[in-house]
């Protein structure tokens, strides 16, 4: 077993109202960042876990996302990175 550090991005499902994202986008526009089209506010988790290899570490975190870390009704997740810890 080796230690891995797995990064996960969890964001509001596309198409759902994201008032935090909209508030941040409005603030950026106020600051003059007129090129900003859209902002989504989510969560970034870094999970240190042991696994036989990177593939298993990723599969394990994917299951964690499905069962707890992301709400399947309202959120999407993506594994951003898997690195040896």
């Amino acid at each position, binding site marked *: 077993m080796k230690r891995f550090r797995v990064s996960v991005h969890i964001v509001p499902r596309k198409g759902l*109202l994201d008032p935090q994202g909209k508030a941040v986008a409005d603030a950026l526009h106020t600051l003059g960042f007129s090129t900003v089209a859209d902002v989504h506010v989510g969560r970034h988790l870094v999970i240190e876990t042991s696994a036989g290899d990177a593939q298993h570490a990723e599969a394990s975190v994917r299951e964690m996302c499905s069962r*707890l870390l992301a*709400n399947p*009704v309202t959120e999407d997740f993506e594994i951003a990175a898997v690195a040896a810890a």
Partner: protein
Amino acid sequence: MKVGVVSFPGSNCDEDALLAVVERLEEQAVLLWHKDHDLQGADVVILPGGFSYGDYLRAGAIARFSPIMQEVVAHAKRGGPVIGICNGFQIACEAGLLPGALLRNASLQFRSMPVTLRVESTDTVFTRAATAGSRLTMPIAHGDGRYTADDATLDRLEGEGRVTFRYVDAAGEPTAAANPNGSMRNIAGVANGTGTVVGLMPHPERAMETLLGSTDGLVLFQSLLAGVKA
């Protein structure tokens, strides 16, 4: 009738719910600690409001894994009545007892105010003593109350009469202005398929005394009593 009120770390409406049952309904009630595995013979379970586990990760997401919740889910699966109020509604959704999820209020503001609800269905053990279409005034106090589900789920809930309460204006219309959190279709509360589990964001247990502005919450508890004794 014996009511069990679950106390999670961070619950802050458990004592109110307990008092509502003991003093206003004059029935038995007991607090159930989240680490317990025993409903202590409760016929009905109340998942109260508050901020269980600090709302970490998502409101209700961690509370779902409390030992007592395994018993509550088993009780619900046996047809036992469960009502989730505010944070309890969020927990019931996270636990899969009710469909959908509660997201951050569209306004991004915590809303603490009285609201007007329309009773959409009397086909639940918590609304059977109410009149369909009648209006109830009770307080809300939440930051994450925007009921959200996909269109297919919402259509199914509507079709099966499982939308229990909607936010309405003084004229009884479910307008955007009357919606305190941006919930889909102005939904304030929903039920499971058998009408034995109900979740709602407003606080009926805080609308039990004229002195506190409303007694409209009583009917939910009276329904409950009728439901158990029937």
